[in-house]
C-alpha cells in the first residue's frame, strides 16, 4: 500500500493540477452539448411549449366564452319566461275584471228588465182591474136597477134614493169581497 502511494507521489501527479489535454477535451465536450441544446433543441422545445400553452389557454378561453354565452342565454330565457308569466297574470287579471264588469252589467240589465216587466204587469193589472171594476159597476148597477124595476114594477122615481141604494149595495159587495180575500 505504501509502495503504491509512493509511486503515485513520485509520478508527480497532483489531482488539483489540471492536465491540459483534458481541459481541451472537457471544453470541447461541453461546447458540443451546449451548441446542440442552445442552438437547436431547446428553441425547438420552447416553441412547442409555447404552442401548447397557447392551445391550453385557447381552449380555456373558448370554454369561458361558451360559458358566458350560455349564461347570457339562460338569463335571456329567464327574463322572457318571467315576462310571459307576468303577461299571463296580467291578462288573467284583466279578463277577471272584464268578466266581473260584464256580469255586473248583465245583472243590472236583467234587474232593470225585470223591474220594467214587473212594473208593466202591475200597470196592466191596475188598468184591467179598474176597467173591470167600472164595467162591473155599470153592469151591476144596470142589473140591479133592472132587477129592482122588475121587482117594483116601475121605474124608481126618486133618483136620489135609487143611486143611494145602489151605492150601499155595491159597498156591501166590496166589503164581502174584502172579507173573502
Amino acid at each position: 500500500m505504501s509502495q503504491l502511494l509512493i509511486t503515485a507521489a513520485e509520478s508527480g501527479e497532483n489531482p488539483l493540477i489540471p492536465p491540459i489535454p483534458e481541459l481541451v477535451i472537457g471544453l470541447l465536450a461541453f461546447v458540443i452539448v451546449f451548441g446542440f441544446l442552445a442552438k437547436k433543441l431547446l428553441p425547438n422545445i420552447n416553441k412547442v411549449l409555447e404552442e401548447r400553452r397557447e392551445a391550453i389557454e385557447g381552449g380555456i378561453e373558448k370554454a369561458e366564452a361558451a360559458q358566458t354565452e350560455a349564461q347570457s342565454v339562460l338569463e335571456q330565457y329567464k327574463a322572457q319566461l318571467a315576462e310571459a308569466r307576468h303577461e299571463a297574470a296580467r291578462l288573467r287579471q284583466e279578463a277577471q275584471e272584464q268578466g266581473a264588469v260584464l256580469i255586473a252589467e248583465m245583472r243590472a240589465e236583467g234587474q232593470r228588465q225585470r223591474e220594467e216587466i214587473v212594473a208593466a204587469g202591475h200597470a196592466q193589472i191596475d188598468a184591467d182591474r179598474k176597467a173591470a171594476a167600472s164595467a162591473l159597476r155599470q153592469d151591476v148597477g144596470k142589473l140591479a136597477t133592472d132587477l129592482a124595476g122588475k121587482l117594483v114594477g116601475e121605474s124608481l122615481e126618486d133618483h136620489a134614493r135609487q143611486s143611494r141604494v145602489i151605492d150601499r149595495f155595491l159597498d156591501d159587495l166590496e166589503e164581502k169581497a174584502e172579507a173573502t180575500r
Partner: protein
Amino acid sequence: MSADPTQVLAFETDCHIFDGCGFPAPGLHSFLFKPLWGDGDSNVYFNKTMLLALLGSIIIVGFFWAAFRKPKVVPGKLQMVAEAGYDFIRRGVVYETIGKKEGEKYVPLVVSLFFFIWMMNLWSIVPVAQFPVTSIISYPLVLAVIVYVLWVSLTFKRHGFVGFFKNVTGYDKSLGAVLPLAMTIEFFSNLLVRPFTHAVRLFANMFAGHTLLLLFTIASWYLLNGIGIAYAGVSFIMTIVMTAFELFIQALQAYVFVLLTCTYIQGALAEHH
C-alpha cells in the same frame, strides 16, 4: 500524464487476504489512465476519461435530439421525460434564482451544464466505464471558468468599473470601521477563490465517491479468502449501498453546481444597494 506501471486493479491479480500480499488500496493512481492513443509525456494523447467525456456529450445530445428534434404539442414518452428534466432546471433553478425575465437568456447554459455534469458524474456507476469524468479536475474547472468569465463580464456590463468593484467587494457603508476588512475578504472570496471552490466542490465529491466505491469493491475481492469471506459479504453490500448513494450524490452535485451558477449570475445582475 504518465501511466502508472504499478497500477493494477485488484481483480487482475489473484491477491487475497492471508495470501501474503497487501491490500491494493485505491489511491491517486486509480485516477490515472494509460493513454489509449498518443504519448502520456507529450501532452498529445487520448485516454479513457476523454473518451467518456466525448461519449457522454454524444449521449446527452442524442437523448435530447431524439426527444426534442421534432417535438409535439402532445408529447410522447421520451419527450415527456426530457421535458420534465428541462422544466425542472428551467423553473426549479433558473426562474427561482434569477427570475423569469432576466433568467430566460441563461436557461440553455444552465440546462446544458446540469445535464453535462450529471452525465459525467453518472459514468461513475455505468458498468465497464465506472469512472466519474468529473473526478478529473480539468472538467469541473473548464465549466467553473466558463461560469466565472460569464459572471465577471456580466457584472462589468451591468455595473461598470466602480460598480463592479462595489459588487465584488460587497461595498456597504453601514459596515463602518469593519468595511475595509469585509471588502478584502469579499474581494478574495468572490473574485479569486470562487471559481476554485466552484470547481473543487464538484471534483472532490466525485473523487471521494469514486474512491469509496473502489475501496469497497476492491475489499470485496481482496477479503474473499478463509474467514474473510464473511467480511467480503459486508463489503459487497456496502458497495451496493454506496452505489445507490453515489447515484444520489451525482444528481445532487450537478444540481448544486448549476444552482451556484444561477446564484452567481443573479448576483451579477442584481442592483447593489
